[in-house]
């Protein structure tokens, strides 16, 4: 033992005697994680969150969350002498006078853009591979919660500088609050401390943005990760991988090194973007005044689909009992997102209800092997994309020589037509891919080698695939659809007839599959 080892050993011993950490560390540092690129999307979320915390803390050192009116006397000439809020003036100060301030602002904003993009990427991975199934339903709900919080947190963040664009966003948020029937106007007064804009929304948003929501994020992310730790990570099917084991690399040293390195790569990519590409140049927008607006005012992308839905809504209003109900804001601004997010949060329970599958799953589905779920996911994505496109309709109109009216009508029709179409096409594609898998297992890969038979026929020689690959392609299970008789064992009709019918139909749709290759199929082909 060298001297250094001796010293380290005695330090470790000192700590262990007082904390009992050795046993825990021994168990957990050797914890095994499976390897796949898509498992790293969640890591991108975590690392960009850390970057958000650090860069955000830096910004709070100079940001003045107040709507006190000041006269700008900073270095940016085109705004000198203008009256503005202290919040906007201090953001200008961070951008132009604080050393590294503009870079930090851009890091904070780009990190937010990437944080939200990575959350959506991670969510798609989890959905399309069926990783949300038992026992991970709670973690799925936590994830949906984090996504929702992220949207709110991001929105509050770009509302803080009090520039023309952020004020416009706040104004729309106020309109959505007001659209709530009966209580809307009171809630809006409550939130803004009086009539819009008032003088309290920046300080209030600030507290929620830097204290309440980051705290909630930290707590939820911790539980999210603890559950991953406790439930172990899912893995893709393959030889030697079962529902009872995890095949991969140990946390120490492989994953420590990989994850640590990946953090710096995430930081590097965000810092690179922030160094070369401008984001939210607030000095160009000017200070917020309710009387002003810029053409092409959009929210950040993760709110863009909501904006798009509001933009495509036809003008509908009802006046009843002295109240106005603005359906054109209520439906796209609150009801549709409410249905979407509730449906998303409950999907694990809905799926296990109609498949009747209550078992634990640690092996992931390949998306093609769950055609109905994959099609449902692509359908939802198409819905989001159509509304997102309408959210940028004015920018698309000017840059692609189209008219806003064309885009609006295109998306109004597309929002109903395209998602079902995407569902049908995706489901067909999945089944075709299953068929291709079946062919591959039965006939092997094409070698490109042509063989001329004695009687003149040309055939292409197929090489059989490896046993490992064949196993991977055939290991998934194909559950039959549920069978529920309409009557119970005594011939009495079951209650909840429509519910059962729906369950059966969903189950049947979910079970559609190209039969995978069985041992009998292979035996038969050997006889040829």
């Amino acid at each position, binding site marked *: 033992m060298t001297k250094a080892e001796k010293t380290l050993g005695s330090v470790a011993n000192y700590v262990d005697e007082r904390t009992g950490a050795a046993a825990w560390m021994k168990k957990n540092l050797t914890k095994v994680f499976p390897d796949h*690129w898509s498992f790293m999307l969640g890591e991108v979320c975590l690392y960009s969150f850390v970057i958000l915390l650090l860069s955000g803390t830096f910004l709070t050192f100079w940001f003045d969350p107040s709507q006190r009116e000041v006269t700008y006397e900073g270095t940016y000439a085109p705004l000198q002498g203008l009256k503005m809020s202290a919040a906007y003036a201090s953001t200008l100060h961070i951008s132009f006078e604080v050393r590294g301030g503009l870079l930090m602002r851009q890091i904070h904003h780009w990190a937010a853009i990437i944080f939200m*993009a990575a959350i959506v990427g991670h969510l798609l991975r989890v959905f399309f591979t069926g990783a949300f199934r038992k026992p991970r339903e709670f973690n799925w709900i936590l994830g949906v919660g984090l996504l929702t919080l992220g949207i709110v947190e991001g929105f509050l963040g770009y509302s803080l500088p009090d520039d023309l664009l952020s004020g416009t966003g706040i104004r729309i948020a106020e309109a959505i609050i007001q659209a709530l029937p009966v209580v809307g106007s009171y809630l809006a007064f409550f939130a803004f401390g009086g009539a819009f804009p008032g003088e309290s929304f920046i300080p209030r948003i600030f507290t929620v943005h830097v204290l309440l929501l980051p705290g909630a994020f930290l707590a939820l992310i911790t539980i999210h990760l603890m559950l991953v730790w406790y439930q172990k990570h899912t893995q893709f099917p393959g030889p030697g991988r079962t529902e009872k084991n995890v095949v991969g690399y140990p946390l120490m040293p492989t994953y420590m090194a990989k994850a640590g390195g990946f953090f710096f790569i995430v930081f590097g990519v965000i810092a690179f973007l922030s160094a070369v590409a401008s984001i939210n140049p607030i000095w160009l927008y000017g200070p917020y005044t309710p009387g002003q607006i*810029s053409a*092409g005012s959009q929210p950040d992308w993760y709110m863009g689909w909501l904006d798009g839905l509001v933009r495509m809504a036809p003008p509908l209003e009802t006046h009843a009992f002295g109240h106005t109900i603005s359906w054109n804001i209520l439906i796209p601004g609150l009801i549709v997102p409410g249905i979407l997010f509730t449906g998303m949060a409950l999907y694990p329970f809905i799926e296990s209800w109609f498949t009747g599958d209550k078992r634990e799953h640690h092996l992931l589905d390949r998306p093609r092997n769950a055609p109905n779920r994959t099609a449902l996911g692509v359908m939802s994505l198409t819905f989001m994309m159509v509304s997102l496109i309408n959210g940028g309709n004015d920018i698309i109109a000017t840059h692609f020589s189209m008219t806003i009216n064309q885009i609006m009508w295109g998306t109004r029709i597309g929002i109903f037509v395209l998602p079902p179409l995407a569902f049908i096409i995706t489901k067909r594609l999945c089944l075709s891919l299953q068929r291709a898998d079946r062919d591959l297992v039965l006939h092997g890969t094409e070698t490109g080698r042509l063989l001329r038979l004695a009687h003149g026929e040309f055939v292409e020689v197929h090489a059989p695939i490896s046993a490992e690959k064949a196993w991977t392609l055939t290991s998934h299970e194909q559950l039959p659809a549920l069978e529920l008789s309409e009557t119970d064992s005594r011939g009495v009709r079951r209650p909840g007839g429509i519910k059962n019918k729906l369950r059966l139909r969903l189950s049947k749709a979910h079970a559609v599959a190209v039969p995978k290759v069985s041992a009998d199929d292979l035996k038969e082909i050997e006889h040829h």
Partner: protein
Amino acid sequence: MKRLSRYRRHKAAAPLLLVIALLAIGTTFSVASATVKQSPTTFARSAAIDEGKQLFLKGCSSCHGLNAEGGAIAPSLIGVGAASVDFQVGTGRMPMADMSTQAMRKAPVYNAEQTSALAAYVASLAPGPAIPEDSVLNYERDGNTAEGGELFRNNCAMCHNFAGQGGALTQGKYAPTLMGVEPKHIYEALITGPQSMPVFSDKTITPAEKLSIIKWIKAAEKEPNLGGASLGRVGPVTEGLLGWILGLGLLIGVAVWLATKAR
């Protein structure tokens, strides 16, 4: 008379008469030509109006009518003023290439001289806003950037975007970008209200305020991209696109690479 008639046949009579006649013609001519020299612009203007009229008859009358009285597809030009013509023709919007939505900015068809001839002709039909003199357009001296920015955000940004990059209007119409537009043309657009643009009369926005707006636009044009690539100065749409494609794209690329190396 007798004395005069006595010398009628005198040898010197014919040459003398000739001299007198020459003198008279010379004096008349010099008096007449002196009058023309005294007001040369009237002459040139009437020449320009004539030239403008010829150009108009050839290039514009098929839509605007032989007397600029307008028609089914084009408005009357009586009373639109020289400023309007200078803007529409000087920025290449007229003659119009595509009648579907609105006149597009393109390379001018007429040169400066022809444009002013056309403007003179149209201005001669009825009084209207005149082309601002260069001395009026000294925005560097008379404008205030910060005030101009405030006026721009109050009056212009809702169509032309916060940075003057232009924006979409309904039915394919649009507010064009203001980058690279001559100060004279901005001023003319303000006082004549071309296409979908409203007229900003001197009562709404004073001439000094107009110069401030021009000064702000020119400052925005020269404004360096302080935060890096500008992404078109059109707001979050391009930012989101870049974040997804370059940001998350790069990170997914790295993730794939890391997962591959481990095998």
